[in-house]
């Protein structure tokens, strides 16, 4: 690690002063996917005689251009199949672009899949040297970083054991340590933050935080995890369907990514609803999960945008169809997707949600969000009828699940990501010793 001062760290404001170490210029990439099953000489001959190509073109990256400057921690996010991994392989020069060019300045160390070329029959030590050689380091260079690698992997006693006797966690740790302790200039990491146990992860976390301060090391990180992007990156890029959908400030990119994910979720839900609608119109009595003949429609959907700040109110609608009586309740539960658990529930027979109109109707609600930190939430609505002679609870007729539930996200620069309740509405206050003693006395008195 260099002995740079933290003050020298490359940030979003000064990265352009640093030289460009990775230049991806109008890169296009497509693959030929064979349309026939076999790939032998016979098939090639048959295709040739038939005059067919035998493959179809899959366009994976379209006109991707970006530059990474020295010292940056550059994040790339995107959904599965969006072209991230292909891009990473092109950066690492494992794949070659069909159009455009990639220029790398300095030594690039890729960590794309776990255990690059590890051989189970060799010892840990031999594997480190072989791995180092494959990454382009000489024997002496590996000598210099060997102790560092072993120490980081915490595998001192196992280095002379064959790799096949390692647990999978140990192998992963060793591979990862080689990649990050190798003295390369550019480190390319793919989806590796889920490596190892908690202690090892914390160690990686510390390492990333420190490397971020180092103006000579450049890191390119590909992940689904928005949290990682926010913690470590100076800049980020969002790749969607093989194109650069957003690049620059990590907050903006994270926003776009969340939004895109919600969009896709909503599209899927809409498609599913449509299909159900169609099936029903064809005379098949199919009800979505949670609904039934008594209550064929119960749906919660957003009126507000799906990403809101804490100052805004989330406005939503509940659409229902219920024809049995004029006396029933709606119960709405707020589920915290990120942290798990039900954050809030209106209760089974809240008078405010006592419905008096049967038939097919829509009712509208709004909910303040100023209590919460950032997160993704989901609203579930259930329809309930009173049980005669029982005022404590109600009978659930139907519940809006899956695509009938509605998802939204809170994003606010003032918010934190971790806890549920933000510090503006709740604080823990310091008290004096006297006050504490007074409370203790009171407690003792009550117990006595």
């Amino acid at each position, binding site marked *: 690690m260099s002995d740079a001062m933290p003050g020298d760290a490359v940030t979003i404001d000064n990265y352009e002063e640093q030289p460009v170490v990775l230049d991806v210029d109008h890169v296009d990439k497509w693959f030929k996917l064979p349309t026939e099953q076999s790939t032998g000489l016979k098939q090639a001959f048959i295709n040739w005689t038939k005059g067919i190509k035998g493959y179809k073109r899959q366009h994976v990256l379209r006109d991707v251009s970006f530059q990474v400057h020295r010292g940056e921690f550059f994040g790339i996010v995107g959904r599965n199949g969006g072209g991230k991994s292909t891009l990473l392989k092109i950066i690492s020069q494992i794949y070659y672009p069909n159009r455009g060019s990639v220029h790398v300045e300095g030594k690039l160390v890729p960590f794309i899949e776990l255990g690059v070329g590890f051989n189970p029959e060799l010892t840990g030590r031999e594997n480190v040297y072989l791995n180092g050689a*494959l990454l382009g380091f000489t024997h002496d260079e590996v000598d210099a970083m060997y102790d560092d690698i072993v120490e980081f992997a915490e595998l001192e006693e196992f280095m002379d054991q064959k790799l096949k006797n390692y647990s999978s966690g140990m192998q992963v740790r060793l591979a990862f340590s080689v990649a990050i302790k190798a003295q390369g200039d550019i480190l390319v990491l793919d989806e590796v933050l889920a490596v190892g146990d908690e202690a090892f992860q914390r160690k990686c976390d510390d390492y990333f935080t420190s490397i971020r301060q180092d103006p000579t090391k450049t890191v390119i990180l590909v992940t689904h995890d928005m949290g990682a992007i926010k913690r470590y990156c100076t800049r980020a890029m969002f790749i969607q369907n093989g194109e650069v959908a957003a690049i620059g400030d990590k907050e903006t990119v994270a926003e776009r990514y969340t939004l895109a994910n919600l969009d896709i979720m909503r599209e899927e839900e809409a498609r599913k609803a449509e299909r159900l609608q169609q099936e029903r119109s064809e005379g098949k009595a199919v009800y979505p999960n949670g609904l039934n003949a008594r209550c064929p429609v119960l749906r919660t959907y957003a009126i507000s945008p799906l990403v809101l700040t804490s100052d805004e109110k989330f406005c939503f609608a509940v659409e229902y169809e219920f024809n049995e009586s004029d006396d029933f309740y709606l119960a709405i539960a707020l589920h915290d997707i990120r942290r798990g658990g039900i954050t809030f529930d209106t209760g089974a027979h809240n008078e405010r949600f006592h419905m008096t109109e049967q038939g097919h109707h829509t009712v509208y609600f709004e909910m303040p969000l100023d209590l919460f930190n950032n997160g993704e939430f989901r609203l579930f609505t259930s329809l309930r009828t009173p049980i005669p002679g029982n005022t404590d609870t109600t009978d659930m007729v139907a519940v809006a699940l899956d695509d009938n539930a509605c998802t939204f996200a809170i994003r606010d620069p003032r918010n934190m990501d971790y806890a549920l309740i933000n510090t503006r509405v709740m604080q823990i206050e310091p008290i004096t010793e006297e006050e504490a003693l007074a409370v203790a006395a009171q407690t003792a008195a009550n117990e006595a």
Partner: protein
Amino acid sequence: MTVLRGLVKTDFKMRYQGSFLGVAWSVLKPVLLFVVMYIVFAKFLRLTDRTPTYPVVLLLGICSWQFVSETIGIGLRSIVDRGDLLRKVHFPNYIVVVSASIGSLISLGINYAVVFVFALFQHVEFTWRVLWLPLNLLELYIISLSLALLFATCYVYFRDIAHIWEVFSQIIFYAMPIMYPLSYVIDKGGVYASLAKLELLNPIAQTIQDIRHNLIAPATQPTVWNTFDSWWEKAMPFALVLCVACLSVYVFRRNSKRFAEVM
């Protein structure tokens, strides 16, 4: 270079992995094989040109051919076998094929050492022609590596190549004077003599004959030099080596960028 050394080391270690005698096998195996062959061919079959050095000539030919067929046979699969590596890191992928060939080169060295010991027992007289050997070996290495590169490229696209090579290598093995003395065929005269001359134009046969001629038996081993008169006939095998080398380097370089995707 470091990569090459690492890969060769790994391959070599893997070869005798888990065996009791370990590396000793690399010497023991050719010794045992040679003893068997010596007994079968020289004592029982008497397929010889009746010179006392013939058994050594025979062994020399067999182990030279073994080098060629091993380099091509292993080299051909090397790219695909190391596919997981090529898909994860970027390094010049010809190194994988070269490392396979160096593995065979090591066994060739060991085999030659064993043959040399046999030769001493047979009282072979060495001449100044031994100085030609490095060039002969270089030619043998170039032709083997070229074919390995060419077939390895094909193998990425068409696995059929492995089977084709198996059959093909048998054909050229018998179309070369390895198990039989070339002089024996030439002496038959007529069509056979012409065919025998034709055999010498095959660069592998030409090199092996040169090696035998220069190392052991200058008097009894016909080569391209003392069989043909015109210079263009003498140059033919070398031209072939050059052509194959250029072709395979061209084909390999053109396709090597796409190996990681195609596999």
